[in-house]
């Protein structure tokens, strides 16, 4: 099959989830992935399924996504190790505490309930936390999942539902003829009247080729994992701070390892498609991890890694229809927080492409926000 209703460029979580939900809506789909599905940001990320702390207008999308995460076995037949174990943002300073309070009040309006826990209650509930923690903002229904599994699981489900997925199919050029987009790839040409660009950090290059340049920078968040320990630390947790270096986070997987990340990022290259972790960043994470969870100091790190992620200048993604080309849709540049959103992005893009309506407000993410020149 070289022709379909929709062609999707990019097989990360955005592309594979979109392919799956487009099939649910009855459209035929061809997905073109240059490497392997889920092998870039979607397969290398931290695995946080976190809503709190987001840009508030993103919560409808995050809420929609959270509902899908909770029902993955029913929807795609496997759970990708999603664990709704709760999520803690922890403040060590008065001003960070104040920001947690303000965020909790504002998030409530967007349908996200957060508990603010302090003092003895904090230590009773989470005895392993640092005694110097002042306040935790607890999001009880957030959690984490296994990033290595999620996108391939959506890809398999999409295939079972009849989508055509090609790996090793680098998109080399796209032209729009009268009705169709003709997509040239390493394995031949494909055509469709509708086209979705979900090429992650590489999305900006394709948008630019359609005359819609955007300010996007690739960067590499720094990940690591400890040896396995008995499973005791249920919630995902991170330091709530405005100081970049302090912003570390961690989660214990049920098998026992503690995955962590945060702090300074290293460089990522769109051309080599590699993100090399800087081991000095790992060392810089250590004191902050020990502050967040003092018992972790006894453990050893057994592996580090990174991945290529696309960051927009305003820290929110590009999502929605093109401002210039009919039939063209974008979902890329998820700024280090797209894993949680992935299933919701898939459902929303499918609804948008199939019906013309996104079902939830996504206007803040429209690419035309950059048409008047990048924001100051």
């Amino acid at each position, binding site marked *: 099959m070289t022709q379909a209703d929709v062609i999707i460029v990019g097989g990360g979580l955005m592309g594979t989830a979109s392919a799956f939900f487009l099939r649910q809506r009855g459209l035929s789909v061809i997905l073109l992935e240059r490497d392997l599905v889920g092998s870039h940001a979607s397969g290398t990320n931290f695995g946080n399924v976190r809503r709190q702390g987001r840009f508030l207008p993103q919560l409808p999308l995050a809420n929609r996504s959270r509902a899908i995460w909770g029902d993955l076995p029913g929807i795609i037949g496997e759970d990708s190790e999603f664990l709704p174990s709760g999520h803690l943002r922890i403040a060590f300073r008065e001003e960070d505490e104040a920001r947690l309070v303000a965020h909790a009040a504002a998030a409530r309006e967007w349908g996200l309930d957060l508990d603010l826990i302090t003092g003895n209650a904090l230590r009773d509930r989470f*005895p*392993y936390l640092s005694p110097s923690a002042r306040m935790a903002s607890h999001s009880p229904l957030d959690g984490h999942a296994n990033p290595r599994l999620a996108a391939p699981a959506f890809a398999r489900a999409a295939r079972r539902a009849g989508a055509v997925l090609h790996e090793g199919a680098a998109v080399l050029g796209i032209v729009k003829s009268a009705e169709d987009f003709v997509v040239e790839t390493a394995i031949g040409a494909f055509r469709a009247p509708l086209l979705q660009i979900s090429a992650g950090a590489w999305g900006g290059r394709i948008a630019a080729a359609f005359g819609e340049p955007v300010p996007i920078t690739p960067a590499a968040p720094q990940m690591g994992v400890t*040896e*396995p*320990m*008995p499973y*005791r*630390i249920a919630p995902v947790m991170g330091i709530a701070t405005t100081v970049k270096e302090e912003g570390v986070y961690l989660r214990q997987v049920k*098998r*026992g390892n503690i995955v962590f990340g945060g702090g300074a990022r290293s460089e990522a290259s769109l051309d080599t498609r590699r993100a090399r972790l800087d081991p000095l960043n790992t060392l810089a994470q250590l004191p902050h991890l020990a502050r967040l969870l003092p*018992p972790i100091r*006894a*453990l*050893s790190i*057994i592996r580090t890694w990174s991945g290529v992620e696309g960051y927009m200048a305003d820290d929110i993604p590009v999502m929605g229809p093109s401002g210039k080309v009919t039939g063209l849709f974008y979902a890329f540049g998820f700024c280090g927080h797209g894993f949680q959103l992935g299933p919701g992005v898939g459902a929303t893009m499918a609804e948008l492409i199939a019906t013309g309506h996104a079902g939830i407000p996504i206007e803040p993410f429209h690419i035309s926000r950059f048409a008047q020149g990048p924001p100051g």
Partner: protein
Amino acid sequence: MTGLLHRVAEADRPPIRLSVDGREITALAGDTLLTALLVAGARLRDSEFGDGTRAGFCLMGACQDCWVWTEAGARLRACSTPAEPGMRILTGAAPWP
């Protein structure tokens, strides 16, 4: 129970005493922690994944199968750590939250 390792040479070194899971053992100065524990017993730890007892494998710091806890909550790789008098080692439940 007899240990996994048996001394066949160099047995005239000065004795040292350690504690393993609360039990006193005697080892010899110059033993690695792995030697001390496995002359006296047949385990170093349990696999985290429920597949049974482990007692090291490579003895050269490569396989990482011989990490044990001290009672004070430190982690030691038994095959490359010299046994010291007074060490208090745990091979079972970890001092972990």
